[in-house]
């Protein structure tokens, strides 16, 4: 009788254990069910080194990002935008402005740079970038807007693991997230743009 | 193993009713405390009042479900073989859910109400932590899974034995013109109907529970509040109705033992139960009459069905009961008295419900104590009385000396009927005076009814203790 019971229960228990185990592994312990979740977890855990990027900022000057960006040891907080975005990027701009003010209040602005990168370099020429900067109060001191060259665009968004897809109306849908890049050019964390406390904590831990 | 014979699992059912009786008594004491607090007879901190209100609502509704399930299991077991293992799995999941809910409320201080209306559980104003709300809902999930297993275990053998739900519901008699002698017994017709609508309710309830849980864990996932409210009330309304319609099987099965005339399935009976099946699911919008954003057709449906839903109940149960009682030599003891009281109380309880179901009245009344007034009638004098009657019947004496009603029985019965009626009446009076429901603190001019109600509640509590203790004592005496 006892043997029959075991014979009856064992396969089901084994299946449950196997199934739950696989799902557990596949979702990093049920923490990352989406690609965005996985991307954020990966950044926080393994802090991948970014390749070197060369950007052009809103004044037309060259701006380096990646291993050699951190010569001054500054942390860079990167968001991706396109300036003609009617929604997320406008709200995100507001979030970044708030974040900059908080950094100033906490006297962290000396070691931190804010950078919004356009993934629409064809339409977002420097003049257009300046327009967005004016609207949101990015004066270039702490917060700068920049674009990659059209050829480098792919490597930049792939490097960060950002996904941009056309929305069918001439615009894009894209991750709305803030990427923390430390002084050695490693991607150490990804946060919602309105998660100001989370970002501040990460910055304090990093500097 | 040879053929499994149809045979009620008496031991398991007696155990369930012991739990149910004890929890009913405990929750009543909590109700008494709340009512006394509204009457300024004792002092409660407001957050604690809401914890008590949450535990009272969830505990009473859950226990009503448990006792209805036990009744139905017992009598369906007379006709088809049932799996005892599934029943114990149901009881285990139910008790696990109870532990979760009690922990959430008394340790986690959850006080968001038994209806966990979105987004209330998530915005506690720091009164409770998100984990408490999540645990509370997980408790519901556990109970819901238990009930799903329960209904599978009842529904599947019924379906097999009677050749599908259409026949189990007696449609071949109701619509096909077959001879009523071919119809399944009333207990099976009722069990089939309840199994169908309660399973649907649980599926909907599980969906909204899990969605609410996801919202708690990942606040970014907002759910549509109106849809969530619809689903919650659909589930809640169906579930509490299921508990009553399961418990009424006790009337069909036990009363014939007292009248000597069997309760037979007739065409009208079949049609009425089919109507119940549909009405129970269609009537819930009467909880939403104040939500102006609801589509008007849904509200009108809720109102019309509210009027109609009293009819099958009165037709098949109350009216038939009168016919059966009339001209038969009914033996009265505690069990039969409580069962007859339950049918009467349930029927009376539909009247204020129908009044509240009118859109014009509801606009004024729905958030007053009129509402607890109407449901306490059909709960205290309906499903709870049925459960107590069933319990008394389970441990009825076989000796001649025990067959009638003792003096204590009589007193307890009278106190229960009077106490419950008076208690509910006070809610109705307060409701008619526009006293809001769910207020921890009452204005001085409302306190009089609160105090009278408290006195009536004491009667209910004391008589309940008599019923439950007597049941426990007799259980101990007669093992099995």
């Amino acid at each position, binding site marked *: 009788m006892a043997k029959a019971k075991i014979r009856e229960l064992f396969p089901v228990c084994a299946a449950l254990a196997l199934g739950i185990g696989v799902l557990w592994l596949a979702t990093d312990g049920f923490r990352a069910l989406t690609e965005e979740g996985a991307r954020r977890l990966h950044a926080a855990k393994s802090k991948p080194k970014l390749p070197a990027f060369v950007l052009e900022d809103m004044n037309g000057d060259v701006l380096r990002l990646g291993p050699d960006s951190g010569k001054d040891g500054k942390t860079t907080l990167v968001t991706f935008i396109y300036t003609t975005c009617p929604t997320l990027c406008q709200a995100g701009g507001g979030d970044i402005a708030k974040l900059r003010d908080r950094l100033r209040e906490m006297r962290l602005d000396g070691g931190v740079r804010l950078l919004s990168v356009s993934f629409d370099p064809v339409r977002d020429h420097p003049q257009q970038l300046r327009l967005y900067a004016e609207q949101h109060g990015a004066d270039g001191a702490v917060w700068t807007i920049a674009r990659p060259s059209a050829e480098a665009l792919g490597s930049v968004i792939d490097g960060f693991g950002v996904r941009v897809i056309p929305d069918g109306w001439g615009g894009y849908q894209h991750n709305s997230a803030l990427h923390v890049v430390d002084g050695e050019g490693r991607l150490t964390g990804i946060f919602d743009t309105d998660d100001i406390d989370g970002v501040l904590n990460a910055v304090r831990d990093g500097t | 193993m040879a053929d499994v014979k149809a045979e009620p699992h008496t031991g398991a059912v007696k155990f369930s009713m012991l739990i149910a009786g004890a929890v009913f008594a405990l929750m009543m004491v909590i109700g008494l405390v709340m009512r006394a607090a509204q009457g300024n007879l004792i002092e409660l901190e407001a957050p604690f009042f809401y914890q008590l209100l949450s535990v009272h609502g969830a505990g009473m509704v859950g226990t009503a479900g448990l006792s209805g399930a036990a009744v139905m299991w017992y009598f369906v077991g007379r006709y088809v073989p049932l799996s005892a293992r599934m029943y114990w799995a149901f009881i285990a999941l139910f008790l696990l859910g109870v532990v979760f809910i009690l922990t959430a409320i008394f340790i986690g201080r959850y006080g968001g109400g038994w209806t966990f209306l979105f987004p209330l559980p998530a915005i506690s104003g720091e009164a409770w932590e998100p984990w408490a709300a999540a645990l509370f809902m997980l408790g519901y999930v556990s109970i819901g899974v238990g009930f799903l297993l329960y209904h599978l275990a009842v529904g599947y053998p019924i379906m097999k034995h009677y050749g*599908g739900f259409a026949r189990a519901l007696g449609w071949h008699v109701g619509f096909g013109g077959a001879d009523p002698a071919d119809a399944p017994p009333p207990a099976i017709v009722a069990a089939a109907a309840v199994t169908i609508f309660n399973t649907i309710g649980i599926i909907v309830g599980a969906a909204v529970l899990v969605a609410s849980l996801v919202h708690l864990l990942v606040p970014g996932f907002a759910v549509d509040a109106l849809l969530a409210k619809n689903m919650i009330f659909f589930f809640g309304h169906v579930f509490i109705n299921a508990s009553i319609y399961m418990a009424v099987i006790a009337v069909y099965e036990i009363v014939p033992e007292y009248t000597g005339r069997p309760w037979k399935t007739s065409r009208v009976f079949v049609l009425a139960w089919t109507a119940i099946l549909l009405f129970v699911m269609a009537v819930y919008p009467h909880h939403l009459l104040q939500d102006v954003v609801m589509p008007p057709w849904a509200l009108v449906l809720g109102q019309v069905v509210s009027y109609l839903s009293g009819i099958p109940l009165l037709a098949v149960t109350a009216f038939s009961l009168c016919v059966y009682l009339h001209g038969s030599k009914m033996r009265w003891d505690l069990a039969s008295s409580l069962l007859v009281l339950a049918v009467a109380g349930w029927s009376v309880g539909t009247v204020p419900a129908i009044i509240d179901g009118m859109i014009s009245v509801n606009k004024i009344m729905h958030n007053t104590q009129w509402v607890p007034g109407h449901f306490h009638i059909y709960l205290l004098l309906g499903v709870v009385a049925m459960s107590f009657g069933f319990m008394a019947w389970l441990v009825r004496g076989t000796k001649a000396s025990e067959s009638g009603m003792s003096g204590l029985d009589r007193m307890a019965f009278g106190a229960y009927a009077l106490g419950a009626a008076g208690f509910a009446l006070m809610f109705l009076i307060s409701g008619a005076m526009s006293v809001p429901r769910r207020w921890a603190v009452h204005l001085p001019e409302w306190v009089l009814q609160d105090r009278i109600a408290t006195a009536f509640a004491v009667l209910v509590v004391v008589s309940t203790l008599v019923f439950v203790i007597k049941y426990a004592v007799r259980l101990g005496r007669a093992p099995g």
Partner: protein
Amino acid sequence: MRRPLLILSIAVFGSCVLFRQTLERDPVTHVLLLLPALAVAGWLMAVSLGRHRLRLREADANALTLLGVFAILFWMLPRYIDASLTNPLVEAAKFISVPLCIGAVLAVSWKATHPFLRGFLKANALSMLGVLAFLYIHAPVRICNSYLEVDQQRLGYGFLFVALALSLVWAVPLFFPADGGATPNKHLSGRATA
């Protein structure tokens, strides 16, 4: 071996491969057409190769069915839907595992599974489709990075529709069983298998 079914199975699988990109462009066809079609291909193959020759014990059938369900859960994770669009390895895993681990496994195990487990899983499937519909229609967050929010909403309505359709398909035989309910039921009388 039943050759016509095998050919049909290969044809279904082949069209899935052929129209892969078209079907994957839209999450509704990806999740509600491509994935089920792959599972159907696996199911047909198992039937054509003679699944009836496998006489499974109920306990083993229960376990296999659970594995099939876990495979479904895996491919419902937005993370792997996304990944299959960008990572060819994951895409290959999808085209192999959905037919085998879902279609073929369930073809072999489903009928022999305990009716209580089957009923439980069906009820849960309806609830969970409801949850998915609920979240996908209203979530203000994007669940798949590869798809637009409006497409996500359409997928939500798709889930709702599937839930309603399945509930009808599953409920009708409960009311009117095809065999009139005449077959004696081994689960209730004399569990010959136990």
